[in-house]
């Protein structure tokens, strides 16, 4: 066990648990915050574990996740909040 593996364990345990908790409760757009932070934490965990195992090729996982996680979150926000070029629900007042 070295410092990098220990960091990976701490990130996976103490970091991901709150994200899972937030991702499992509340309205969808409130859960999305937990999912987004989990993506960041997992990407960083991939990096430190690659260093801890001495296999730099594992860093490619973090590179792919660093690209796809934000893309996935943007897809979620698009489906949750609708088309950015059209005024949102607050744009046009609903007739009472």
């Amino acid at each position, binding site marked *: 066990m070295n*410092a*990098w593996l220990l*960091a990976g364990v*701490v*990130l996976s345990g*103490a*970091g*991901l*648990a*709150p*994200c899972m*908790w*937030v991702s499992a409760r*509340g*309205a969808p*757009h*409130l859960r*999305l*915050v*937990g999912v*987004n*932070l989990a993506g*960041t*934490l997992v*990407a*960083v965990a991939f*990096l*430190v574990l690659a*260093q801890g195992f001495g296999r*730099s090729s594992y*860093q490619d996982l*973090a*590179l792919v996740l*660093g*690209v796809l*996680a*934000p893309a996935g*979150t*943007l897809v979620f*926000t698009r489906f*949750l*909040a*609708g088309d*950015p070029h059209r005024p*949102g*629900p*607050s744009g046009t007042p609903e007739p009472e």
Partner: protein
Amino acid sequence: MTPRHLAALVLLVAGVAVLVLTALALVVLPAPYLRLHALSCATSLGAPLVVLALAVETGPGRAAAKLLVIGALLAAGGTVTTMAIGRATVLLEEAQPKESGH
């Protein structure tokens, strides 16, 4: 223990501490807007610190450059997604203010 390894460990501990604190802040901060602060700290401070630690440990070269690219991706992606989630939250909170009172 070389000074470079020591510097890498200091950066690593700082980065992991920031990331764990932001994860805990996610649970503690009230929804829906204050939680977004946790997101931006993780990607603009925590992840870059850990990436810097890895780059210092790896030493100058192509591998360190690759790590820094990954760190920049995480920072840029995090910023964009935090703003996108903020916008979605504003639109959805206005559309359903009574239901989501968390």
